[in-house]
């Protein structure tokens, strides 16, 4: 199967390419750039005039909900949503049901992903059994079954000795550990950032220290154990500063942030809109500015969707009684382009944070369109205006405040392993 993507603006940060050119794909791989390989006959032609051609996006945190409650989503439905958003690689947390703490669950996810046939899913394994923070998970067996990193998710390991042992063991095998930092006691019962809006609405607050206390502990133990560590979905400016300081000291830690924490603040919760019930919570303007600054300076390398689909009923209740999280696969790129529109990043920088940077953090053979590489490609029209609607969205969850909201920048085609897995009509 030969595909020719013609006349698009190819942006490939890995190879520092930004030019209008043609891309030749053969047998799932990049065959040539600009000039046709000898004897190349295109089976399919994609006209990418006025469009951007870039590596398929890599979403470093998205919940596909399988295995687990099928009313929220499945690998099939959420894969479709992902490729409609230009995402060709998705990293899923171990908080499935059952939890990813046995090789069988990891294998199941990989198999379902292959069946769906849309993209690549790399599950993260549980750091401790049942995420209970007591006993180490079989990390080596999990890694052999496809787990790309290990995390205890938002269930902080209360016992610091157990946490130290986890990190030492992961370091033994050079596994990446992902921290989604949240102190359990400080987070207890909270549903939004603890500030004046929270006080007015009379909701239980999640203080900044919920994150920063745990970031501090994890940084200290990372340094002590020498483990490779990544901090997922930061929400506080102070966390960014602590991580920047650690990086300056030479600690090889990385971080990502969800697009919603870059765009929204706790003031959005005014009016008790349940779609703004998120964990980590939307925080202050100062935090948001600090996260954007961290992204620009490189302290934070990647942007993710933190996609969390829910059924309607899970969001139909008074604010604190609803389940936290919003969907984001289909809007990740469009919303991220706002950072370019505001001239915080240029387009190649943004694309790097959505492709090459997460690939580098995870050590993936992806996010790179050099000749011979896998043809995972996203093609989008940066000027196209569109709206995500409940009828046209692919995710089983419809829970996002950006539903029916004008968006700019629309994915037109997505290729995975050289196959067109999504085409906008």
């Amino acid at each position, binding site marked *: 199967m030969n595909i020719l993507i013609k006349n698009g603006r190819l942006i490939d940060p890995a190879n520092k390419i930004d030019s209008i050119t043609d891309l030749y794909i053969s047998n799932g791989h990049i065959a040539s750039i600009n000039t046709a390989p000898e004897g190349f006959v295109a089976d399919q032609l994609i006209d990418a005039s006025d469009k951007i051609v870039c590596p398929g996006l890599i979403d470093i945190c998205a919940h596909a909900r399988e295995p687990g409650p099928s009313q929220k989503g499945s690998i099939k439905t959420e894969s479709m949503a992902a490729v409609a958003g230009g995402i060709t690689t998705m990293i899923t947390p171990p908080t499935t049901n059952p939890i990813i703490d046995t090789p069988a669950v990891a294998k199941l996810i990989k198999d379902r992903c292959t069946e769906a046939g849309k993209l690549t899913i790399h599950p993260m394994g549980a750091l401790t059994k049942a995420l209970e923070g007591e006993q180490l998970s079989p990390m080596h067996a999990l890694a052999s079954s496809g787990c790309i990193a290990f995390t205890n998710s938002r269930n902080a390991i209360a016992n610091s000795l157990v946490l130290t042992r986890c990190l030492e063991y992961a370091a033994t095998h050079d596994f990446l550990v992902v921290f989604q930092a949240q102190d359990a006691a400080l987070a207890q019962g909270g549903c939004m950032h603890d500030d004046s809006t929270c006080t007015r609405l009379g909701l239980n607050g999640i203080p900044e220290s919920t994150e920063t206390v745990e970031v501090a502990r994890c940084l200290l133990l990372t340094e002590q154990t020498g483990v490779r560590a990544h901090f997922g979905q930061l929400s506080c400016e102070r966390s960014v500063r602590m991580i920047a300081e650690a990086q300056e000291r030479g600690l090889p830690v990385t971080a990502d942030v969800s697009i919603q924490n870059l765009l929204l603040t706790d003031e959005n919760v005014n009016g008790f809109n349940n779609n703004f019930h998120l964990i980590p919570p939307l925080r202050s303007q100062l935090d948001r500015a600090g996260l954007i600054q961290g992204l620009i300076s490189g302290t934070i390398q990647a942007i993710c969707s933190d996609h969390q689909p829910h059924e309607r009923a899970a969001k139909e209740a008074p*604010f604190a009684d609803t389940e936290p999280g919003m969907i984001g696969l289909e809007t990740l790129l469009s919303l991220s382009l706002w950072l370019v529109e505001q001239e915080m990043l240029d387009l190649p920088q943004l694309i790097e944070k959505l492709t090459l940077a997460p690939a580098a953090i995870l050590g993936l053979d992806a996010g790179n369109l050099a000749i011979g590489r896998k043809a995972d490609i996203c093609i989008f029209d940066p000027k196209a205006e569109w709206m995500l609607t409940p009828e046209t969205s692919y995710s089983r969850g419809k829970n996002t405040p950006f539903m029916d909201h004008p968006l700019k920048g629309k994915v037109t085609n997505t290729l995975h392993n050289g196959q067109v897995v999504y085409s906008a009509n």
Partner: protein
Amino acid sequence: MLEHTDPSQVQLTKDGELKHFITTEHLSREVLTEILDTADSFVDLGAKQVKKVPLLRGKTVVNLFFEASTRTLSTFELAAKRLSADVLNLNISTSSTSKGETLKDTLMTLHAMHSDMFVVRHSSSGAAHFIAEHVTPDVAVINAGDGRHAHPTQAMLDMLTIRQAKGAFEPLSVAIVGDILHSRVARSQIHALRTLGVEDIRVIAPNTLLPHHIESLGVKVYTNMQQGIKDVDVVMMLRLQKERMNSALLPSESEFYKLYGLTMDKLALAKPDAVVMHPGPINRGVEIASSVADCDRSLILDQVTNGIAVRMAVMSMAVSGQTKSRSNNNGTEV
């Protein structure tokens, strides 16, 4: 990036009239004064031989209490009956109904029975707002207390009591003392006092019972009771809500009483004609001394009487607002 809505707007018709009563925040001084004036006209009704007026005749009021209450529930029931409404009281414990779907289902069922008004008490902040906005917009919703968010009828009966005792609001200094953190009453009082023109509003509590950034609501924060109560005209005590205290907020009740309990000694620091209020039920010897609660400067029983009048006022105003808003909507559809 996204606009956020003002939660108080849901309770007003297009013409700015009350159709629900969810919160005192962002309501105009005119609306608050109208509530007080209307309530004033009902105050004397209780003393008459025939205590009823026909304003809600033929209407069905459902008191939907997801949280235990005797005093608020009974004053709402009396208020509705004095307005000639049919009243249904439902006590639904939240422990047996686990999550929100049940709340919605319960409401849809009651809605199908053609109720005209829901009086809702719920342990979750935003519950009344959720019902008014998403579940039953054509039924008047009166908030009888939602989580820590608001208890607007309590705040308005307090305002009525203050107005009766003091006249104008502007020159007053008002202190609110006690468990501000967990108190929906305090939040609603602060918004109402500010809108009615009180400039010197003080909250007095230890840091563990103060919500963060409470000063953003326009109050002065005191952690020392003696300093905070000095020369105030009104002392509003709050109940120390023991049932909500699930973590280490205070060393002991006795230490709290020593530092923040209202005794005659502490009251002596306020203005000589200062009045004392409490939303009840009072914990004698925890937040207030018996000698204070029973003294002639205590308005605690006036508050109860005024509670019925204020609830009659907002119920009649909300039903009238709903009727008008519905006829307006019908008008535009034609």
